[in-house]
């Protein structure tokens, strides 16, 4: 059983006897635990062995600044790091004097300045003490926070990742002065160099303890009342599953879990199809999230950026978000050109065709006018779309183009924006898209993504079963993962073998301590992040040798670094010494995964369209397209484009000069027709 709580909808997915059941319900914004429990009660959870949970509640709290009152204790003189960040502006604000940093004191700070208090202390970068901790001064600062009735305290001191001695003592002082309120120290939450990301991560961690702590308790009680006795996990930013106690010990890990699950769902479904190289695209109402699966595994970053320059250090499926989705607003630029996004009509008022007050045209309106969407069957028939409203919205645009060029321009521009996002991540990963298939999901994914195929040159586009709830299926496609990491700047030379050996043994012991009953099944994997001396950025996730680390193992680490660097960048600098930065150990334990029942192979006849629909406003059109019901398709069916395939919550658009083949698991495989 899995539940993915989004900002608009909550997706509930259950796998019973190999069959997938899905429920999509509106998110209860007032009390999302209540909504989750209602959904679970409806579908029945008493007999479930596993309950996996993802939620955007934490992320939404940050984005809307509906945050608990958390204070920061930092090294005296450095409290304004949370106003400064890394100082730079986003591309759109390079020459904008009215730009304000989103998290700064003049805009919307995470922690107001008066709750950021400096403590007299200072470490050297090697962990030695420059100034001793002044406990009397620290207590006075903590008492001020007490008078302000803060709900939690984050402690992040300079060089606290090297030695957390002062941080630990401060935490004791907080306990003595303020009692047992949530309190985290940076040396434990995120022991990585770079005071700004570490400070943000520590602050977010405390906030997430407050947001998810109470929620988890309420959910736990509700689950018990529903008779659930299985294992309960949260999914993290890399869609790895963490037992609820592990997640609550470091909840910054779960802040951005929903989108990551889609990548993991793709990896799992791809593995079932024998596809290990995937470009994953999740088209929602506001944006398209793009990610990559390489050799069967999602590409992972070491940070996730919540807003421009607001990073949280945690392993995260690398996702690029483009402001183009079904609800993206179409507008006319000053040269008369058609623009799409980044503004979105959202769920309310929604696209103009919803006839719910929205007057701006959107991608959904374009698809309705083209004929891809059926006005009477949207969202399983729950909503009737207004063709007239959509047309009026396009007519109101201030551009010399005629209606057809407007609609076509909107559709093509939206596709081009999505294609740019896909290309962005393709280039970022240095991959050739011709070796990759494009996984199309999210409610609007099958409607838009197949037409992107010629722009991105992927080998094929695949629409999986349940495309609208596919991300939630990722929660039933993941491993339970335990991990520990530690930063230590070590130039990789034979003399440091012993030190590295000790670090790995210490990390492995810490992971084993978390494993509990899983210890028998788990395989421990080592990796490290490293760079060449002089570089500031690391090359992450280089495999490290197993067994004792001796001089030969260190030499192997150096060689693996240079090979990995050359593979990822094309440059090789053998003469430059290599410096390890972060050592990592992880243990993955398999959890029962979703299976897909598949569809029977067609033995007689062929797929027949229910009717023919006219597709207008498209290049080379109008086109007559066959309209098919997905539920009637059988494995082996081949459909020529243009065509439309309908299912209750999604519509797949098969462009002209493309063909669709139905696979054994019911997936729709779309490829360009070979050129005549």
């Amino acid at each position, binding site marked *: 059983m899995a539940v993915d709580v989004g900002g608009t909808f909550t997706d509930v997915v259950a796998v019973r006897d190999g069959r997938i059941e899905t429920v999509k319900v509106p998110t209860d914004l007032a009390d999302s635990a209540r909504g989750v429990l209602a959904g679970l009660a409806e579908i029945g959870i008493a007999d479930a062995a596993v309950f996996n949970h993802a939620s955007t509640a934490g992320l939404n709290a940050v984005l809307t600044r509906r945050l608990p009152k958390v204070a920061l204790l930092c090294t005296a003189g*450095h409290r304004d790091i949370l106003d400064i960040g890394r100082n730079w502006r986003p591309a759109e604000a390079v*020459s904008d004097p009215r730009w*304000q940093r989103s998290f700064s004191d003049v805009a919307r700070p995470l922690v107001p300045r008066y709750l950021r208090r400096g403590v007299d202390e200072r470490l050297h970068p090697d962990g030695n003490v*420059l100034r001793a901790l002044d406990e009397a001064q620290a207590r006075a600062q903590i008492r*001020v926070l007490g*008078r302000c009735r803060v709900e939690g305290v984050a402690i992040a001191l300079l060089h606290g990742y090297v030695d957390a001695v002062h941080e630990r003592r401060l935490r004791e002082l907080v306990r003595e002065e303020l009692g047992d309120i949530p309190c985290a120290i940076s040396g434990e939450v995120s022991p990585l160099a770079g005071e700004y990301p570490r400070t943000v991560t520590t602050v977010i961690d405390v906030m997430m303890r407050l947001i998810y702590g109470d929620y988890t308790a309420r959910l736990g009680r509700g689950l018990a009342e529903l008779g659930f006795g299985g294992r309960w996990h949260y999914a993290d930013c890399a869609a790895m599953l963490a037992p609820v106690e592990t997640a609550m010990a470091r909840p910054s890990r779960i802040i951005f879990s929903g989108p990551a699950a889609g990548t993991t769902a793709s990896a799992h479904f791809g593995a079932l199809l024998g596809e290990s190289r995937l470009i994953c695209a999740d088209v929602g109402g506001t944006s398209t999230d793009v990610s990559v699966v390489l050799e069967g595994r999602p590409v992972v970053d070491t940070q996730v950026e919540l807003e421009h320059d607001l990073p949280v250090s945690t392993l995260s499926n690398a996702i690029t978000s483009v402001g183009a989705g079904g609800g993206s607003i179409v507008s006319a630029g000053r040269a*008369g050109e*058609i623009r799409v996004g980044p503004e979105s009509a959202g769920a309310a008022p929604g696209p103009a065709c919803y006839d719910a007050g929205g007057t701006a045209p959107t991608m959904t309106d374009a698809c309705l006018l083209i004929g891809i969407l059926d006005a009477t069957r949207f969202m399983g028939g729950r909503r009737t779309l207004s063709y007239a409203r959509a047309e009026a919205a396009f007519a109101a645009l201030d551009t010399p183009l005629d209606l057809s060029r407007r609609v076509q321009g909107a559709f093509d521009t939206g596709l081009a924006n999505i294609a740019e996002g896909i290309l962005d991540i393709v280039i970022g990963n240095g991959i050739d898209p011709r070796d990759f298939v494009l996984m199309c999901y999210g409610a609007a994914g099958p409607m838009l993504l197949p037409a992107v195929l010629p722009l991105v040159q992927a080998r094929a586009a695949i629409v999986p079963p349940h495309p609208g709830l596919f991300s939630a299926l990722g929660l039933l496609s993941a491993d339970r993962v335990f991990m520990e990491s530690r930063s230590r700047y070590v130039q990789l030379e034979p003399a440091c073998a012993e030190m590295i050996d000790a670090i790995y043994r210490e990390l492995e012991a810490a992971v084993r301590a978390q494993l509990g009953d899983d210890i028998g099944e788990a395989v421990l994997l080592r990796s490290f992040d490293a760079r060449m001396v002089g570089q500031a950025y690391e090359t992450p996730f280089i495999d490290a040798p197993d067994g004792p680390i001796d001089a030969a193992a260190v030499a192997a680490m150096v060689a693996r670094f240079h090979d990995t660097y050359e593979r990822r*960048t094309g440059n090789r600098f053998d003469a430059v010494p290599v410096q390890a930065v972060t050592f990592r150990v992880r243990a993955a334990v398999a959890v029962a995964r979703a299976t897909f029942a598949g569809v029977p192979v067609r033995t007689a006849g062929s797929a027949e369209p229910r009717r023919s629909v006219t597709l207008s406003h498209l290049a080379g059109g109008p086109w007559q397209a066959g309209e098919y019901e997905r539920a009637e398709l059988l494995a082996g069916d081949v459909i020529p484009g243009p065509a439309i395939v309908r299912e209750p919550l999604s519509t797949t658009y098969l462009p002209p000069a493309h063909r669709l083949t139905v696979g054994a698991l019911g997936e729709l495989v779309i490829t360009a027709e070979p050129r005549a």
Partner: protein
Amino acid sequence: MSIVTTASPDLRALDEAAFAARYGADRFTCEVLANRGRYVAEHICTALLHRAFSPIITFSQDFVGAVIGAPEAGYPLTAVNKGNVIFLGSLATGVRTTIEEFGLDRLAPGDLVICNDPFRVGNHVNDMCFIRPVFHAGKVAGFVVIRAHQLDMGGTVPGGFSLLKANVFENGLVMSPQRLFHRGEPVREAMRTIIDNTRFGDLLLPDFHTIHACCALGERLLVESIGRYGTAAWHGAMRYTVDAAAAAMQDAIASLPDGTWTGEDFVDSDGRDAARAYRLQVTVRKQGRHLEVDLGGCSAQSPTALNATALDAQTAVALALKLVLDPHTPFTSGLYRDIDVVIPTGSIASAVPDAAVMFYFEVQSALVNAMLRALAAPLGSRAIGGAYGSTNLHTGAGTTADGTPWFSAAELEAQYGAWGATDSGDGNNHCGLAMLNMIMPAVEDIEPRVPARILDREYVADTAGPGRHRGGAGLAKQSVFLAPGDHYLVPLHFRTASGSGVAGGGDGRTGGAWWLHVDTGSARVEGALPPVDDFTAAEPVAGHLDGDTLAPDAAGEFAFFGRLPVWQREAGAVLRWRTNGGGGWGEAYTRDPQAVLRDVRDGYVSIAGAARDYGVCVVGDPDEDPEGIAVDETATARLREVGPPREHTPAPAATPDCVAGVHLERESVTGACPACGAQALARYPVLSEGGWYRVLKCQACLAAVERVADDAGPIALKSRLV
């Protein structure tokens, strides 16, 4: 005689056929290709940022990436990344100059051409231009460019940030246009020339290879796009994106009333002469759709490294107009089309050989400020407050107790600071100057490399320019050095306020720089650190300071940072900075009392400052009980009724004595203007889109009768002899 126009096409009015005829593709394709260029520029920069070895590139992001259009289109700058505008402004003309001198027909696929001469490509010698031709179907279809600050280019001091360099020979190595890579292979003699003449060659060399790889990536991506959409569409799209920017600026200029406005700002000193400041003066004239900015009155070029070239002046002038009139259109060289800059030769903003050009960005900062002051009147409530002024650069080098040499450049000064407020809100406390968009290196990145500890980096109460929207706050920054060293300090804007208030707002307070000393024996500091507002034991470096307290005071004595050419300091030296506050917007006595209360709670404004500067009476103890403070409504009403005290902000510093200005003589020409009939024609050089022109313009209505490209401009390069 007839009128010569630079007017841009009305893109919106073009029907599809006319559009396609003009740009070789439909609007959609042009937009796609324009976006593609920007995205390529961003990608090559991300790759370089993550792979570079030089700290100034990888920690500070002191570089940009750009896409330049084809030679036959005039080398337009079509796409840039989110980097330093100072690098971007001079790129189009700089790349054209470099490639034409090198020889377009000598270029081969896989070449990387370099040039770092400020007189050819603007900026300073450290900012090397790396130019990769984009070959498609055997022809140069454009260029991928990275311009990146090299940690050292030789010259008298490590890193180059000394104001006292007197000429090009002391300034650093000049590389005239030449190849660094040829057909994908390194040109070893060029590399050796650089490495033999510079410090830190071990860092520069791998960066050259990485930059080459990044430019090659950019070329590959562009060639794929050209292949897909066709050559005609590619060239048309590049013209389109530049035209779109030109048209946007043209419309923005039209929003200004006709008139003539002047503005000025000052750079404190050239580092040698304490008595005289340098003036940056602009006269902005707008008539109909024409706009001209005359830099006449700018002080003569300096005998030190405080100089900029005309290309840098053009960047600053156009950027200032863009900030206030058209902030969101992507930056291209089309921005310059309707801005004629009249530049006298040999000013501090238009230096000629053999001047040392190093601190051009300080000149640009003052020039932007002069422009914003000139435009404040016509803009009214749209005017924006001034920023913190100077990057206050520091360079230090020395040897630690165990004999290890250390070096630090551009990371221990107060390089960033406050912005001015605007009609839409308070100013940021901490940003780069308008021309800069760099990353601030982390304390934890600096301290493992440099024997210094950054002790404070915190805003100071009552330094922001008061206003209905207040400016950003001044910053106090202190670092203690744990090893002896030689320090070069270049604070250039403490003599007068940089953060001008607008629309009734007050100026931000000026700051300064000081040395202090603490005992760092056994690498520990015992007891309290010097409080950032206690100056009693300080040695002044820069700023107008009170004679007794040595605290900043506009009426006080001016401390001259150049009285020592090098500040030699022992271990335990503490370098203290306080930056200027940003300018306020609107009458401070109309600021929402709750916003003032929040500022008091947050320590941006003191209780006394709230009463004096804002007419708001706050009661309580903001330090000990920040949530217990409140606005005394009755007392506030009384204060606001009386209005601000006459002397509620310190008197501004007097206008300093300045190095004499230079002017450009316009040659009078007999004849009537065909546009307005006035007998007021004159001929003179201007800098505009694509470089220098000799224009014949009516001085009454600014219409042009002649506009002839003048490649050479007024700068005579000695190497033309070759």
